[in-house]
């Protein structure tokens, strides 16, 4: 089609001014946008209020459609499972037989663990659960990896709290609204988690790669100790994530680091658990100083 004529005003002075003004407004708008980007980096509070308000508005849609979509999402898996039923059954039966002795052993160790902890008078914080929620939507159209859960401040969820599923770690809360909260998934490259290998405690750092995988980089420089199949869990260092939450399984090696796949796939998990930050249970240093000053040499005597 031919181009329109009204934006080529010719000799009409009034139309010329109108066109000029619309360009000025547009350029001003664009520059205002740039300014907002800079401001939102300096002070993200105002932006998070707007975003969580809109999240409240769209929450009913997300929550009511969530069931339907998760059913559709696992359709392919169900079909494949049906086709493979026979051979899979055999393989699983062998695996169960192999796992049974280990399971019994683990139960014995668990009993022993409880007994030893009782002997040491260790009290475990069992009230670290804040809320249970569902993942209802995600930032599917942009490069950052943010998901939204169906619980917020009214359920006790606050920014900074770690979020996990039964299978493993999901991420941490970055924005909390009244009934929704935004979570930075562990596959986002701004989510850095201290981890260790389960079998021999080799310390590493897990960083998201934004494509559904994480990069696991050992703290010790030199040869890469990781092999495909290794499982890494959180260390508890940094005080945010509680220790021994499963994070990822190594699937490949790439220039000095290992590539891992998160054990909890956010697209598949049924429900997620919002927990208190691990560090909140550690007493503040001030009280320790007080205790030390009232009872001098307490530490030495205990030793």
């Amino acid at each position, binding site marked *: *089609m*031919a*181009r*329109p004529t*009204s*934006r*080529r005003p010719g000799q009409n002075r009034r139309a010329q001014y109108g066109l000029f003004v*619309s*360009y000025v*407004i*547009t*350029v001003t*708008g*664009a*520059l*205002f*946008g*740039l*300014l*907002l*980007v800079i*401001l*939102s*980096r300096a002070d993200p509070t105002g*932006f998070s209020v*707007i*975003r969580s308000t809109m999240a409240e508005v*769209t929450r009913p*849609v*997300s*929550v009511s*459609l*969530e069931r*339907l*979509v*998760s059913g559709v999402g696992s359709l392919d898996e169900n079909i494949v499972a049906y086709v493979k039923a026979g051979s899979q059954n055999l393989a699983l039966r062998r695996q169960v037989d192999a796992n049974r002795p280990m399971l019994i052993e683990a139960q014995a160790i668990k009993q022993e663990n409880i007994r030893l902890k009782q002997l040491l008078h260790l009290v475990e914080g069992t009230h670290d659960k804040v809320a249970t929620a569902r*993942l*209802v*939507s*995600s*930032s*599917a*159209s*942009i*490069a*950052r*990896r*943010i*998901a939204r859960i169906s619980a917020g401040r009214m359920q006790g969820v606050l920014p900074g709290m770690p979020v996990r599923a039964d299978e493993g770690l999901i991420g941490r809360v970055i924005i909390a609204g009244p009934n929704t909260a*935004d979570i930075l998934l562990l*596959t986002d*490259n*701004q989510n850095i988690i201290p981890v260790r290998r389960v079998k021999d405690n080799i310390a590493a750092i897990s960083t998201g*790669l*934004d*494509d*559904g995988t994480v990069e696991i980089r050992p703290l010790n420089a030199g040869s890469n100790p990781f092999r495909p199949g290794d499982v890494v869990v959180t260390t508890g260092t940094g005080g945010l994530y509680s220790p021994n939450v499963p994070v990822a399984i190594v699937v490949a090696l790439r220039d000095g680091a290992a590539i891992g796949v998160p054990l909890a*796939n*956010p*697209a598949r998990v049924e429900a997620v658990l919002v927990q208190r930050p691990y560090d909140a249970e550690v007493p503040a240093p001030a009280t320790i100083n007080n205790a030390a000053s009232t009872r001098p040499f307490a530490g030495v005597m205990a030793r």
Partner: protein
Amino acid sequence: MIPAVPRLGSLPSRWRLQSIPICAIMLGSMMTALPIISQSPSMPPFGLLILLAWRLLHPEMLPLWIGAPLGAFDDVMSGQPIGTAVFLWSLMLICIEVIDQRIFWRDYWHDWLMVVGALVLCIGGALLMAHIAGSRTPPQLIVPQIIWSALTYPLIVRLIARLDRWRIMA
């Protein structure tokens, strides 16, 4: 369903003519509220595609500055730092305006080429802004998204053309 001609003596209201395109673009931006948990940038930016479809179908319907308010809404829905789409959509609309003044006749393929350019500008620009903010997202991650967003455009433009018929026929 769609009446072939407008009813005699009744012209569609001004409110209807103006609001339907805006609502369509905002609905497109709200697609991220659907319960799809994606592991990589996979969903086409529907708000942007619908804005492009309206802009290329009706060059004079939306004012030039519409990119700023609609971009702000898209930022809130998508989760980008607010201002990203405000800037990129305004820049994109100015670029399309300039291209429109250069070429006299515009074909379907020209439209598509412009859409690809706009997608590269907006998705790539958003990635660039994220990089300035400290993100290290690999640039090749957005290539598939750009490709299937470009492939979605013909479908979007047909849907919008149908909606446009309904808009002016009531």
